């Protein structure tokens, strides 16, 4: 008793349970994805609209905001304009970011080279798990140690309050060190074994091999690691806020109290009234922060693309 082709065709064209589930699954999983995208769009949209209000609603000049050195949103200057110069905080943020990256880079890459090239055994057994664990230490813990160890130390050596760019840099240095080390080690690990073997076979010393072959081949990955660390440092709020002193002044020395975009934001946003100029000006700082994180993102992509082209 076999079916006629017509019967069979009908059976094969009936929408099965599997086909219905497939559509359901696609819709559900796609919705989840769209939700994430919507969150990103909403964050950028909200922060941008609030951050731009300073310039559209309160008519602050964008250039004055970026280049002004006085931050006192509740006061007005001699021309009757509000004092919303964010330069001191922008400089503060960049200063601690660049300084901590400059200090962290040699240590991080050196350690990564050590654990990958010189002592892979100890590297895999001890250093790698330890760095991976330290990546997860909460930033407030770094801030607290900065407050109870670094600030008093700076104070005893350089006098003053101990709060300032130097303390901030120290804290961020230790904070991004595990991240940059761990990512650098990944970059080195991605360099194929035979690169090293070929170089050593040609009579190069281990250092020449590391310097001329391994580090060169891993350059894009190492740069990504450093930029990633910088992005983290730039966006770090609480650890920095706890040790920098929070004085929105142009930094004149590394040991005077200063401020960063994040530190002013964390201390300020709770003390201002929504919709006021003081509040909008803070959202403008948040917008700068957001734009900078987009820039870091872009740099990392560019490095990645260049790395792939090579």
């Amino acid at each position: 008793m076999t079916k006629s082709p017509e019967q069979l065709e009908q059976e094969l064209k009936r929408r099965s349970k599997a086909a219905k589930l497939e559509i359901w699954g696609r819709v559900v999983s796609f919705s989840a994805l769209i939700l994430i995208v919507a969150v990103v769009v909403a964050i950028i949209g909200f922060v941008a609209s609030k951050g731009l209000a300073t310039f559209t609603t309160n008519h602050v000049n964008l250039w004055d905001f970026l280049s002004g050195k006085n931050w006192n949103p509740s006061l007005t200057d001699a021309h009757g304009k509000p004092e919303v110069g964010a330069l001191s905080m922008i400089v503060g943020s960049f200063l601690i970011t660049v300084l901590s990256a400059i200090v962290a880079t040699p240590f991080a890459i050196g350690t990564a080279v050590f654990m990958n090239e010189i002592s892979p055994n100890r590297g895999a057994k001890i250093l790698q798990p330890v760095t991976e664990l330290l990546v997860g230490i909460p930033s407030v813990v770094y801030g607290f140690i900065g407050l109870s160890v670094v600030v008093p130390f700076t104070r005893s050596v350089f006098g003053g309050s101990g709060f300032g760019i130097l303390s901030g840099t120290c804290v961020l240095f230790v904070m991004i060190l595990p991240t940059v080390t761990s990512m650098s080690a990944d970059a080195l690990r991605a360099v194929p074994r035979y690169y090293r073997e070929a170089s050593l076979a040609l009579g190069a010393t281990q250092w020449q091999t590391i310097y001329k072959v391994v580090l060169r081949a891993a350059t894009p990955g190492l740069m990504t690691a450093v930029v990633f660390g910088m992005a983290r440092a730039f966006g770090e709020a609480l650890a920095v806020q706890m040790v920098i002193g929070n004085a929105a002044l142009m930094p004149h020395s590394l040991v005077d109290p200063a401020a960063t975009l994040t530190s002013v934001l964390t201390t300020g946003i709770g003390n201002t009234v929504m919709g006021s100029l003081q509040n909008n000006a803070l959202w403008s700082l948040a917008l700068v922060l957001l734009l900078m994180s987009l820039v870091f993102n872009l740099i990392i992509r560019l490095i990645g693309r260049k790395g792939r082209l090579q």
Partner: protein
Amino acid sequence: MNSKVQNKIAIGVLYGIAGVVVLILLALVGYILVSGLPKVSWHFLTTPAKAFLKGGGIGVQLFNSFYLLILAMLISFPIALGAAIYLYEYAKDNWVTSVVRTAIEILSSLPSVVVGLFGFLFFVVKLRLGFSILSGAFALTFFNLPLLTRSIEDSLHTIDDKQREGGLALGLSRWETVTRVILPAAVPSILTGVILSAGRVFGEAAALIYTAGQSAPALNFMDWNPFNISSPLNPMRPAETLAVHIWKINSEGIMPDAKAISSGSSAVLVIAILLFNLAARYLGKRLYKRLTSA
């Protein structure tokens, strides 16, 4: 300079650098544990904080941290799972996918303070949820989503495509194949990723100070009705977490034993993260073994 000598010097320097880094890291962990552990006691872990007096604990904060963590995970896991499944199993390699991936990368690189401020603006103010567990859980969700999505995608990647073909060849849909074949096989690695991300969420503070708030009203641990204001489960109450607590008592400076409390809290946080790490490794291995033998 002779290249052999140069080699010796360079390697010596590398040993030095690695040594310094190890010292720094050890000193860091050592300091946290040595200064903090003596403060940790059952009393410390279970009593509420005292704002103006010595001898308070971190009981409420600790509870809040776990409660927020669980809520945030409950919200973010299904979303991240769905997104990862779509990205890995369905998405074609076209511009839409690349835009979506870029968006997720942007979210993962946003400073957590920006995420917190958005949470404040949207949940606390716009949706009038106030400083509450719920606002905090949403902020933590946003903070957690991109990394969790990536980690689940990586887990899906570890499962051989032959398994997918096997499911399809039996007449299963892709969805059935993923949910019935791929996900069960990926559980050990997904779980590892989830626990590691839980560690990050547990220690996060910047996203919470303006969403879950900075106060920890006393809780009645006998009252488990989530609609009562003093119930620990009430999702609408403000809830300072352990990480926020460390930040707050140090920036206010009114608690007389703020330093001791912070040391103890830091040690608790770090040990919790350590346990999360160990648990992730252990459970992942254990489950994997169970899946492949027995």
